[in-house]
C-alpha cells in the first residue's frame, strides 16, 4: 500500500508539469482552398485526384477594393476573411486550360466565431468555425468542405476543376 501511495504522489507531482499551457496559436483569419483535378492513367485506367495548378488572372475579395491577387499560378489559395463580417465572397478569375478565355467563379462563405484564452503570455484569440458555403457558381459535386474550422495549415475546401 505504501508503494502504491508513493507512486500516486509521484503521479500527482508529475501532473503539475501539465499545468502550464503551451503557447500554440492555431487560429487564423484565412480560408484555405485546394484545387484538384481527376486524372485517368491511360494504361491502367485508374483515376486519381491530384493537385491542379490554376492560373488566376485576378482574385477579388468582398470588402477589398482592387485585386487581392493578380496573375498567380497555384493549386492552393489562402484568402482572408473580414472578422467584422459574418460572410465573405471570393471572385476567382481563372484562365481556361487553352488559355483563350477567362472564367469567373464565385464562392460565398458564412462562418461563426468563438473566443479562446490560450494562456496569459499568449493572449486571447478569436477562432472562426462552422464554415458553410452559402452561394457558389461551382456545382455541388465540385466542392467539398473538408474542415469547418479556420486553422493554420488546414485545408477548408477542396474544389475539383
Amino acid at each position, binding site marked *: 500500500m505504501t508503494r502504491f501511495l508513493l507512486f500516486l504522489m509521484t503521479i*500527482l507531482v508529475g*501532473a503539475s508539469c501539465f*499545468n502550464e499551457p503551451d503557447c500554440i496559436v492555431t487560429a487564423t483569419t484565412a480560408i484555405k482552398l485546394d484545387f484538384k483535378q481527376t486524372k485517368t492513367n491511360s494504361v491502367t485506367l485508374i483515376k486519381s485526384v491530384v493537385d491542379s495548378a490554376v492560373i488566376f488572372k485576378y482574385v477579388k475579395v468582398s470588402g477589398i477594393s482592387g485585386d487581392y491577387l493578380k496573375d498567380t499560378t497555384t493549386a492552393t489559395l489562402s484568402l482572408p476573411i*473580414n*472578422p467584422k463580417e459574418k460572410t465573405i465572397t471570393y471572385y476567382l478569375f481563372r484562365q481556361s486550360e487553352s488559355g483563350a478565355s477567362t472564367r469567373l467563379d464565385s464562392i460565398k462563405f458564412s462562418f461563426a466565431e468563438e*473566443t479562446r*484564452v490560450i494562456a496569459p503570455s499568449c493572449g486571447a484569440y478569436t477562432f472562426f468555425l462552422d464554415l458553410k458555403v452559402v452561394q457558389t457558381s461551382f456545382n455541388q459535386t465540385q466542392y467539398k468542405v473538408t474542415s469547418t474550422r479556420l486553422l493554420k495549415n488546414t485545408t477548408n475546401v477542396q474544389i475539383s476543376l
Partner: protein
Amino acid sequence: MCRYLFSILAICWVLQVQAQEEPPPPKKVRIDTVHKSYVPTGLRIGTDVLALIRSKDNSFKGWEINFDTDLHRYFVSVDYGYWATNQLLGNGRYTNSGHYLRFGADVNFLLKDPEKNMFFLGMRYGISSFNESVQYSNTAMYSGFGTNSYSRSNGNLSGHWIEITTGLRVKIVSGFWMGCTARLKFAPAVSGFGQLLPYDMPGYGIVEEAPYWGFNYQLFWRLPFKTK
C-alpha cells in the same frame, strides 16, 4: 555421502513422527483491541494559507475554508472558497470571480498513530459558480481589415469536476494541526457559456487542462465533540 543422507532422512522421519504425535495448539482467540466507533469525535476547521498568500498579488484574490470530521478511519470533508483573477494577457485582460464547493471523503492510513497524524487518500466532487470576461485585440491576416477589439463575457456559469486527493495532517500542539493537500483534478465541465469558451474555473483552474494540479497548505483547529 550416503551415510549422511541416511542420517538426515532418519532425523526428518523422527521429527515428522513427533510432530504428528503432538496435540494441535489451541486456536488463538482474536481480541479486538481497537474499538471501531463511527461516531464523530470532533470537527476540524481550517483555511488554505497559500490562497491567502497569493491574495497579496493583484492578479489573484481568494480564500478557502475547510471542514472535516472523523468517522473511525474515514473523514468527511467539505471545502468552500472564493476565487477571483485579474490577469494581464499578451493582447488584453482576463478577469473572473466565483465561489466553489468541494465535498468528499478521505481514508486515513495512519490510524494507529498515537498523535493522530494523518496520511490520507481521498476523493472530492467540486462545483463552481462563476463569471468571467475578456478584452483583447487581434490583427487580421489582411492588414486592410485592421485590428479588431473584442469584449466578451460569460455572466452566469456553473461547472463541476472530480478530484483525487492525498496529503498529510500533522498535529503541532493540542487542537492545532498543519497539513498539505495535493489534488489531481479531472473531468471538468462547464455550462452556460456563449462565444467565450470558459478559461479559468474557480476551484479547478484552467478548464482546457485536464488533469489539472492543485495544492493547499492548510492550518486546522479541532473542536472536540466529547472529552474522554
